[in-house]
């Protein structure tokens, strides 16, 4: 006896003669039609919920990204000196200190390293579109964060979120693009999941989410206010006591080189000088292995600089500072940040780098 539908068993054949389940088959047809129709439908996407989720307080990084993207997207006049880069610049360059030294407008547009140089370029492009060109750009980076690979950046999804935010703020992003890339997508309808959940579950904004303190950093609103009042600068509040010698791997992957190259290409095109500044490293990381790795990184950077007429490295010698200057490996404490700001401002002023 066999259980096969091709069986010659009479009982089995008898069962086969039973009517097919019309309800189920019609439901399958209905789903197929709906899915086919949904291929041609899309709805605009609300940019504000990318970094400010409705159902929980935003993280500190999300607050930083939202604040910087808002700054890049708002209409205004370009400063003389625009500070671009990662969180080492966000917390290491105080525009008020620099402005006092150079006597020019300075604005800090630095955000995080997790978006890579191509994410920085996207923000810069938007800033220049809304503000015009600055006289000088200072690109501040943490040497240790240039090691991120293309996979790292793709996995963190911050860069993808930046692109989506910028597109959505132009009304060019649709719900379909917000769908999480890590989820396996089979059906066109799955693109509308977030939108449908929001509407059917009446997801409420929770104002208290934006007022919820996040450890030492305070709430979203407090942080935004602080950053706005300080021309884009944010004070580091952590206090790391690390003092162990540490070998750092600073080699840049090809993807980072290509992204930095593309950023400098753009700056060449708009004709604004750009100066690369490396964040100081802590003295405990000044090991033979770190220095060797640093030499390799500097060679890579010099090769990139050689291809761009507007770009230069402002401080060819890597600075090492005592541990007490650092809150974390990449972040200076406020007093050291003020010192760093003065140093950079003096170099810009002394070198006559700002064209009138």
């Amino acid at each position, binding site marked *: *006896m*066999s*259980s*096969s*539908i*091709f069986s010659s*068993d009479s*009982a*089995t054949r008898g*069962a*086969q003669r*039973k*009517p*097919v*389940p*019309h*309800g*189920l088959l*019609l*439901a399958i047809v*209905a*789903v197929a039609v*709906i899915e086919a129709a949904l291929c041609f439908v899309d709805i605009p996407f609300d940019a504000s919920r990318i970094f400010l989720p*409705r*159902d929980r307080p935003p993280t500190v990084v999300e607050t930083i990204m939202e604040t910087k993207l808002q700054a890049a997207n708002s209409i205004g006049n370009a400063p003389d000196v625009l500070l671009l880069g990662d969180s080492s610049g966000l917390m290491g360059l105080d525009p008020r200190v620099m402005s006092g030294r150079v006597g020019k407008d300075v604005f800090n547009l630095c955000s995080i390293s997790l978006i890579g140089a191509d994410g920085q370029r996207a923000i810069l492009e938007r800033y220049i579109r809304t503000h015009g060109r600055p006289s000088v750009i200072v690109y501040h980076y943490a040497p240790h964060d240039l090691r991120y690979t293309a996979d790292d950046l793709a996995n963190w999804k911050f860069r993808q979120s930046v692109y989506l935010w910028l597109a959505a703020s132009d009304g060019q992003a649709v719900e379909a693009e917000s769908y*999480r890339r890590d*989820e*396996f997508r089979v*059906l066109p*309808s*799955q693109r*509308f*999941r*977030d939108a*449908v*959940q929001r509407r*059917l*579950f*009446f*997801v*409420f904004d*929770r104002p208290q989410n934006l007022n919820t303190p996040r450890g030492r950093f305070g709430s979203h609103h407090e942080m935004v206010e602080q950053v706005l009042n300080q021309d884009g600068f944010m004070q580091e509040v952590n206090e790391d006591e690390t003092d162990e010698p540490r070998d750092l791997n600073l080699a840049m992957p090809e993807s980072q080189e290509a992204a930095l190259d593309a950023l400098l290409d753009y700056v060449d095109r708009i004709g604004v000088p750009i100066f690369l500044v490396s964040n100081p490293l802590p003295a405990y990381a000044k090991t033979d292995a770190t220095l060797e790795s640093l030499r390799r990184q500097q060679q890579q950077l010099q090769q990139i600089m050689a291809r761009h007429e507007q770009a230069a490295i402002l401080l060819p010698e890597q600075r090492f500072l005592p541990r007490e200057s650092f809150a974390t490996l990449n972040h200076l404490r406020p007093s050291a940040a003020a010192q760093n700001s003065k140093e950079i401002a003096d170099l810009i002023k002394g070198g006559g780098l700002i064209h009138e």
Partner: protein
Amino acid sequence: MSFISYPFLVLFAVVWLACWLLPFRFVNPFLLLASYVFYGWWDWRFLALLGFSSVVDFICGKLLDGGVAEERRSDVLAVSVVVNLGILALFKYFDFFIDSFCEVVATVGIEMPPPLLRLVLPIGISFYTFQTLSYTIDIYRRKMSSTCRFLDFLLYVSFFPQLVAGPIERATSLLPQILTPRKFDWEQISSGCQLALVGFFKKMVIADNLAPFIESVYGNGGASNGLAVVLATYAFAIQIYCDFSGYTDIARGVARMIGFELCQNFNLPYFATNPSDFWRRWHISLSTWIRDYLYVPLGGNRGGRFRVIRNLIITMFLAGLWHGARWNFVIWGLYHGLLLGIFAVIHDIRVKKQGTTGSHPPEPKLNRVGFWLSVLGFFHLTCLGWLIFRAESFASIVKLLRSVLEVWHWSLLNIDPNFVVRLALLGIPLILFQCYQFKRGDHEPWVGWSLTTRVVFYVVLFYGIVLLGSPERHEFIYFQF
């Protein structure tokens, strides 16, 4: 492998085709292979444990069925029980008891570090241990004969739809289905598909969407305000029902699509009017297992009132412990044992008043108001049990109960409006649908609906799962047991 995963959909598609296209002699070996792939997907090393348990019980079954002299049969059964419960004790309870012992001796000043094994708990071990034990016990009791088909027996223990979270199938029910060729039946396949769809909806849409809110209250160490605890406990009652009965519906639906009929595990449990009724409706395969293999051997309803209450409390203590090696499960079991004991006494008094006789006198009939008041009242007693069950420690139970009892501190502030909306949007339709099922006395009422209504129902369920399924994947609650 979880039901809620793309690999499972692929595996099931292959199994379904194989079940209906392969000649019967290849179907069971293929199902066995698929079941081992399904189980090994989590951790292939535990396949050895599953295999070992199966082999021991296969051999014990053969020996019990005429393989040894009459006076040695109890020894063989003892081997089966000791091996199965020994494995369960080692993996699930060893650390718990050692740790608890060390804590107790520490209170009298003897400090000793607990020699914990920290073994990973094999998924579904409590379910397949009970399933395989029922086989040897039933043969010992001469309720069935042993099977001589080894691979089919392995399939009985490891049958993938119900392997990791039940229903706990008796060999008398599942083995004959395995041994007999299944007949291809569109209606059976269609109804299996519908049942699985309902199960996916319960799990992915209702249970998983409530989970984060419940976690935010219960994961807070009991520091929430009383109203939030009450709402979270109602939500948990819905979550655990939809999670577990959803799993059962998927398991039964999937099994039905390949020609098997698994036992019903839930029968609208929140319509229970008393604890005895509740355990006839909730996790039926476990409650009947413990009734048949634990409660009845302990003496069951025989003997005096005190003896019955003792039997109920011991049985429910062990049923609580079955759920997990944590004191809150033990307390939950004892709580239900106590409820059953109290109910037995009340029932006894009422029956004597009415002058009903017999070994199992029927429960007195309730009028409509009495019925609904009993349902509502017992639902809240069940919820109190769920609070104990869900709390993360004994201290947490105390804190949660205190916050509930301090009614004057209840506050609407700090309650996430999203939680209230979601609880209402998911809970109210579920309650209404269950009332409809209860009124019709039919668990699958959609089968009798008109064609149009059925099509709309399937499409709504499907899009509910696709669009409203929680973006966060929550493992089935009963997997941990």
